[in-house]
């Protein structure tokens, strides 16, 4: 695959490419915050259920305190997502007409 020249041209595609220059997609939010938020909420709810699980519920799950463990796991996962977002915030994408060259 060589670098010489441009791909074949097509009027419909060129038109779409021109439209892409006024794209608003740079304003997209960060999905990590949504995932993190939902899983923290799930984690808290399920962990609380797990703490107050009755004997019958634990027996149903073959003696595993599954609500407690699954709740804690979801809580940790949610916090990690939020931490990741806080630690590496999404860089604002460059406008389409001037891509950085390296």
């Amino acid at each position, binding site marked *: *695959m*060589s*670098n*010489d*020249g*441009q*791909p*074949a041209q*097509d009027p*419909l*595609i060129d*038109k*779409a*490419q021109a*439209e*892409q220059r*006024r*794209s*608003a*997609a*740079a*304003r*997209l*939010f960060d*999905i990590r915050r*949504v*995932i993190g*938020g*939902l*899983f923290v*909420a*799930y984690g808290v*709810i*399920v962990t609380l*259920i*797990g703490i107050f*699980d009755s004997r019958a*519920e*634990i027996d*149903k*799950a*073959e*003696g*595993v305190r*599954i*609500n407690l463990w*699954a*709740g804690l796991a*979801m809580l940790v*996962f949610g916090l990690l997502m939020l931490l990741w977002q806080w630690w590496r915030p*999404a860089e604002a*994408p460059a406008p*389409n007409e001037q*891509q*950085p060259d*390296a």
Partner: protein
Amino acid sequence: MDGEGLRLNMNGLDYLILALYFVTVLGVGFAARRAIRTSVDFFLSGRSLPAWVTGLAFVSANLGALEIIGMAANGAQYGVMTVHYYWIGAVPAMVFLGIVMMPFYYGSKVRSVPEYLRLRFNRPTHLLNAISFAVAQVLIAGVNLYALALVMQALLGWPLWTAIVVGAAIVLAYITIGGLSGAIYNEVLQFFVILAGLIPVTVIGLVKVGGWNGLMDAVGDTKLGEAGLHAWQDTGSTANPLGAHWIGIVFGLGFVLSFGYWTTNFAEVQRALSAKNMSAARRTPIIAAYPKLFIPLVTVIPGLVALVTVKGLGAESGDLQYNNAIPLLMRDLLPNGVLGVAVTGLLASFMAGMAANVSGFNTVFTYDIWQAYIRRDRSDEYYLRVGRWATVAAVVIGIGTAFIAAGFSNIMNYIQALFSVFNAPLFATFIIGMFWKRMSALAGFWSLLLGTLVSLSLYLLYKGGVVDFNSDLEESFWGAGLAFVTAVVVAAIVTPLTSPKRDEELRGLVYGMGGVDLKGDVLVGDAAWYRSPVLLGLIAVALAALFYIPVF
């Protein structure tokens, strides 16, 4: 299915978990709305997404309920051989898409898979594929919707109608409002929710049967027997649970069917086209291959656990059909709390599958049918509006096709047959066109048409009892293989008789013609070795081969 026996004991907290999820999904749709100004924003997310997002959406778009319910059912019915769908089927095809084909898709800036055919061949080929894709998508969307409604009816006791309309309304809302970004962001979220729902079922299931070794021992005593524990051992003949010879598995499933599905199915490829640059687009299917390697752990294992623990599983009808393997385990093993998460995960997977169909449909309908053949020179705002209406139409038609799907007893095999009819000849046409520059435009058209007709005829002959196969799956393997061979032969015969396309028309579309720029839009950090598509792809394939060793 009367469903009474499958009813789950959901309490208020389980419903709270489900409601939280619905609210979040709609919220994501509204938040994505801010990012839509042009049709490219709506249909391709403005080509702005990072690779991990498009990669997880890529795998999630395929992680529909058909996949989860169907693969667990196959796990119970065919045993360990089900892993072929993942390790020789999906993974090599996904890696091939990323390394070899994506430069042509992304580099030529086409907006859809049919559009590639328009540039490479001609308008008849394009129209044929655009229409068959659009039809297939609304049919499959209907199947997803119907499957969703069946599960909601059985597990939650909702009437079939209510379940279909509620599911359709939510998908409609977030795609009409948020476009592809709404669909993709929700798919990433769904990916994690689906796993959060399936992992507890798998873990408790394994505890119940005494771990991996306990499961292996127990499966040996079921009707599946020892043969259910090996992926390759008995494939020298067709005397194995899948009824397939290794040639059929490698060539039919591994090559034609899987490559056809993963590399030409626009509902999948669209996720990669929305990536922010060439490197991210190539990494999209390869990043998706890694979760795909591990998904059999949460589908095939629960299937086997259900086979061992649920007495009488495998009935022709009623609550004990193979398709109910996962719902039965949820009923038997999960206490309230994780039960709510599991139900949410199951519903999330139905919506992910349907959303992928709908967002693929609205793009192909708008760009490849409406803009190319009906109303050509209108403003971008016009096409954005058409896209929103096409979404509404797709969902409404999907509700109609859901009731068609209700007429079929075995949904999974019906879907496989659809793939062998539509995707296999398409893949053959693609792969020849991409690597053989001489292949003419007319050859492309006839390869696609005759390949499709041959596979369709074989399916109809099999259904009519004229031709015999060991299983429906074996028929789809052979149908796919035959379609592929037909397309190749037709291309070889028609091409020398017709005139070739000029070289400059093929730039960026055909291997060895130049015009593909792999590095032109690189971003800081893309050069890191762990972001090399080739290296990542080879590791994924090597892992797939290694995973076979314990279950050979």
